[in-house]
């Protein structure tokens, strides 16, 4: 029977990637995700897999492009400024319909910012970030064990939909240690075949992997095909979690680390007789608009709490519309909201 081990978030993501059958990992060092890179450096070569410390983030994502095109499971990881550099490659992956997993252990921004946890890359992750009409699936874990589970899921979704998938973590999740039950390894040989991959044109026509078509009609078709896939993802892959929302008069909408903190705020508020619930998107793209819309017609207030100036808040307001009040509380620059601070905000909006 598998046993629980105490591990850091960054290492859990790395180990889960290995267990998901990641054959090639390429990255460039950056805080606060260096442990992820180091775990891969220690473990990939001894498994006969590829670890390359790339010369840059741009090179790392381009290596991912190559490995993915060659049909293997592949991943890169970084933190905010590094993810900005990867945006070129992410757009090419999306345009070329190539699966890949990208981990963003978000830190304070903009610019060099700092190395403290933040959620200020939500827009970049969910609304494009790179050029062109594309989306990637974005999974937002709120605990260390969940980071492992969602990493396994990320590889599955990437392959199923031939799309880049991002794990949107933050510096706190990356650094925190928690007991985890590591998932069973996937047998890479048992994974579904990728008949589209560039593996050598033996006994078949050449596979050509492109992200362009100079003919507008052709590029239109390519885009429509992408959009059709995004529709399917929106229909099938929305994930969220609700905590004590059945009788709630107010709910907090939060993802990732903030949702974890908000869970304790729910307990604190309930102890004081405040009927507080929590709505936590697990996929921030596709955002759980429908479940939140349904919930918002039963509550008076949806308080968005983020470590940003209000990025997910825009999606919350799109979902809620005028059905409930939609105040916002955010902390910036790597400051993590405290349970007390959040509870104080909750109290401002009840009664």
């Amino acid at each position: 029977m598998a046993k629980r081990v105490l591990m850091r978030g960054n290492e859990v993501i790395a180990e889960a990637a290995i267990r998901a059958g990641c054959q090639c990992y390429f990255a460039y060092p950056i805080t606060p995700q260096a442990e992820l890179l180091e775990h891969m450096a220690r473990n990939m070569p001894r498994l006969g897999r590829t670890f390359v410390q790339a010369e840059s983030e741009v090179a790392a994502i381009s290596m991912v492009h190559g490995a993915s095109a060659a049909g293997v499971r592949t991943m890169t990881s970084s933190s905010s400024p590094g993810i900005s550099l990867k945006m070129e490659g992410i757009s090419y992956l999306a345009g070329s319909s190539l699966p890949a997993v990208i981990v963003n252990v978000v830190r304070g921004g903009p610019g060099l910012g700092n190395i403290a946890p933040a959620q200020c890359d939500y827009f970049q992750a969910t609304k494009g970030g790179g050029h062109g009409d594309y989306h990637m699936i974005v999974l937002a874990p709120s605990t260390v064990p969940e980071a492992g589970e969602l990493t396994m899921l990320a590889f599955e979704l990437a392959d199923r939909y031939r799309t880049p998938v991002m794990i949107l973590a933050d510096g706190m999740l990356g650094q925190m240690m928690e007991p985890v039950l590591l998932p069973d390894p996937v047998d890479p040989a048992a994974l579904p075949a990728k008949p589209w991959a560039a593996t050598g044109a033996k006994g078949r026509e050449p596979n050509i992997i492109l992200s362009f078509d100079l003919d507008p009609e052709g590029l239109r078709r390519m885009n429509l095909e992408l959009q059709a896939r995004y529709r399917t993802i929106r229909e099938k892959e929305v994930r969220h979690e609700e905590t004590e929302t059945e009788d709630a008069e107010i709910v907090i909408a939060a993802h990732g680390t903030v949702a974890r903190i908000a869970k304790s705020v729910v307990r604190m508020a309930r102890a004081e007789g405040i009927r507080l619930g929590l709505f936590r998107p697990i996929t921030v793209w596709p955002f759980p608009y429908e479940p939140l819309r349904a919930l918002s017609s039963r509550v008076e207030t949806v308080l968005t709490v983020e470590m940003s100036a209000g990025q997910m808040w825009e999606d919350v307001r799109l979902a809620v519309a005028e059905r409930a009040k939609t105040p916002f509380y955010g902390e910036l620059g790597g400051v993590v909201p405290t349970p007390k601070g959040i509870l104080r905000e909750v109290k401002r909006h009840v009664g």
Partner: protein
Amino acid sequence: MSVSVERMVKVFERPRSLTGAHSTYCPGCHHGILTRIIGQTIDDLGIVERTVGIAPVGCAVFAYRWYRCDALQVAHGRASAVATGVKRARPDLVVFAYQGDGDFASIGTAESIHAANRGENITVIFVNNQVYGMTGGEMAPTTLVGQKTTTTPDGRDPALFGYPIRFSEMIAQLEAPVYVTRQALFDTKRIQETTKAIRKAFTNQVERKGYSLVEVLATCPTNWHMKPVEANRHVAEVVTKVFPLGDLVNRG
């Protein structure tokens, strides 16, 4: 008088590794010669079923159309990094990156140098025609001093834009590459030399020797505003003075 081919043997035909597609290059452009040489090499080595080509951004953006092998078209300058990814994922494939001077020696500088420095077991073909052809004849990193382009209308002034970069010489300073050479295509002798170089660069990879780079001085008659034959002469008489031909590294 006409000679019937029925009593004759074919001594030169289109390489089987090339598709039937008509090239998109301008008349007299050396990309086509190089494409034929690569196709011939893939034929000769019998590797078409395990070759993957990496097409760049630039005039060779359609390079994936010319060969009967798997291919990718990738971001500007990143071909050597993408080739790294393909090769590391599947070492049994033969991977070649085909890059122009802007792609390889300007926007892809970091990717080009570090793939070479890691000694990736790949083949890189670097086409140096000293100009950005696809976008309208702008200055390239390899544009000659005094050369007029659409962004150096009075000629490249080193005080403002520096000097033509001898990128292969830079790569040749590294320890890992097994083969670095500069070739040209301005006459049949050079074409035969280039053919040997390309064959060596692919053979090195097949034999798992490591990184090979073949820089090829090419013409751009359109953006040089020269007739193809005149452009050939320009390479022979002027360009080779700045970019001398020959092997820079040969550790094979």
